[in-house]
């Protein structure tokens, strides 16, 4: 085969000189992600004593460690789900142009800039036993004793909702704005009321985006660490897997154990994302435009 014909064959498969443009990104990913990941795996497989999988065996044999997986999932899955589900109606209502849209968007997105520590601080002050929230409830006579919303499951959950919602909202908004508004108009003229338009036209086109959004907010929530300690109950109901990894590595100086916990954390995330993306691939994922032109 001539070199030119060979180049054409490669180009048909999408292999040409433009691929070199991916170079910098590939180096970046390799240096910042692949290398640390492989390094972590290597560390986890070299425990001080026992075979290569001793650190993993220890993690799964000890219920105190093993249960952190379930604990983290119990916080992260509902928080991610709530973030996605709450974003949909709000983003849906905020499509199109209206007065004050920019202000409202800013208010909804500001928590992104706060960071987890500041959010935790705020939650402690606001929701704590002597915080405004409880003082108002007590003053109104709704409750007799302060409601406990900090240093337990709910504190962490709320903190994840506050920091995760803006991400979900921004993502869902941008997915929604990619859906051709004339589709719903066509639905309306054909006799579909708002609920039918939403559930039969918009939602099916939005669903793949919701799956992606869920994955992203789930990953954010799953690696929760500061708020689990600051507004949570880090030795009990909110002893999340990152705490287990931290304790192994920096309290017990068991680097293999810490690395194993971190790798397990990554694998659990991969499984959840794999399941969600697997379900997503069953959906219609093509263009969201209504036709040519």
């Amino acid at each position: 085969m001539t070199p030119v014909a060979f180049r054409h064959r490669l180009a048909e498969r999408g292999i040409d000189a433009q691929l070199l443009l991916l170079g910098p990104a590939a180096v970046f990913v390799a240096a910042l992600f692949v290398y640390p990941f492989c390094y972590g795996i290597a560390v986890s497989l070299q425990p001080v004593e026992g075979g290569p999988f001793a650190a993993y065996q220890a993690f799964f044999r000890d219920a105190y460690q093993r249960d952190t997986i379930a604990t983290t999932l119990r916080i992260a899955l509902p928080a991610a789900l709530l973030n996605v589900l709450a974003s949909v109606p709000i983003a849906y209502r905020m499509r199109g142009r209206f007065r004050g849209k920019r202000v409202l968007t800013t208010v909804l997105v500001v928590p992104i800039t706060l960071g987890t520590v500041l959010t935790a601080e705020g939650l402690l002050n606001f929701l704590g036993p002597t915080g405004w929230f409880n003082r108002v409830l007590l003053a109104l006579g709704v409750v007799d004793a302060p409601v406990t919303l900090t240093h337990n499951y709910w504190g962490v959950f709320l903190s994840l909702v506050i920091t995760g919602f803006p991400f979900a909202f921004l993502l869902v908004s941008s997915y929604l704005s990619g859906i051709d508004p004339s589709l719903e108009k066509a639905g309306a003229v054909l006799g579909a009321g708002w609920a039918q338009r939403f559930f039969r036209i918009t939602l099916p086109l939005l669903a793949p985006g919701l799956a992606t959004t869920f994955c992203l907010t789930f990953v954010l929530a799953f690696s929760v660490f500061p708020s689990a300690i600051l507004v949570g109950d880090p030795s009990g109901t909110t002893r999340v897997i990152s705490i287990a990894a931290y304790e192994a590595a920096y309290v017990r100086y068991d680097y293999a154990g810490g690395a194993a916990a971190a790798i397990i954390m990554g694998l659990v995330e991969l499984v959840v994302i794999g399941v969600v993306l697997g379900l997503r691939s069953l959906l219609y994922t093509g263009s969201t435009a209504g036709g040519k032109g």
Partner: protein
Amino acid sequence: MTDGGRFDRLRLDGVTRRFGGSDALAGLDLTIERGEFITLLGPSGCGKSTALNCLAGLLPLTRGSIWRDETRLDTLPPEQRGFGMVFQNYALFPHMSVRKNIAFGLRMRRVARAEVRRRTEEAIRLVHLEAHADKLPGQLSGGQQQRVAIARAVVVEPSLVLMDEPLSNLDAKLRLEMRTEIRRLHQSLGLTTVYVTHDQEEALSMSDRLVVLRAGRVQQIGTPEQVHTRPANRHIADFMGFRNLLPVRVAEQAGDGVVVDGGGLRLTGSPVGGIGPGEPAVAAIRPEDVRIADQPGGGVEVTVEVVEYQGRELSAEVRTGDGVPLHLRTTRRLAPKDRIEIVLDPARLLVFPAEPDGAP
């Protein structure tokens, strides 16, 4: 849910829509009889889509009302009007097969399952898409998507079908075919259609009546022949292919006609609208109504400047001795720099007031 029922008369009464500070559509009065094919015609931005969206209920009116016989329509949401609409970009549901797209309206009307299937298959046959019924819209060509959009709109037997420039995204050949197809469907299904286009040829060939719009205002309502032969003002004339528009001054009344002077020419034509001697006017004539004189001495002497080959005919730009440019069409072979004599058919030359209703 409404019947989608038949009506005798649909009446638009002063329908007005403002955007920001300006009227996109100002005081549209129109009565549509059952079975009519009405076309809204005008240049881009004149308010055609606005009018259609107001009719469909997709845009609230700023003023005015819409009546179906004695029922007030403009307060109903679009899903309760029982109309069908074909969008300019087709707006097919990309996640539904052709069959599901077409069945959508019937299912929203809670038609029985067997009936939905029967009518959907019938509509698919009507637009010749049997081989593509299970494909997604993204797998179809523009012309096929167009036919899906039409089938989806007519399968519900709407009392009124609205079409917003449905052919503007198709190539020239397909456009001609679909034009005939749409007119055929209109007749065979007994539809009432409001069609929007900026293409005067399309409008003339398909419609029973034309509504010519300009800057949100109705300029003329009439049959294609009326609009074609007697446009109501110089702007419509311009739009309807009167390519020669000459600024002139009225010299005298001559029976039914007027004699005008301008650019060294003395022309006779028929006046449209009241104009008296001495007033400024615009003389308008189509290129095909400018003839080359049979023998010398019969007409105006001009020099050929540009010649365009257009198949059977030539289109030429010529210039008079005083430098007035004119366009003509002829089957004679012409070449640049030829000197010929032309005659402007007085029966086809229209004279309009220079500034109708004060607008430039």
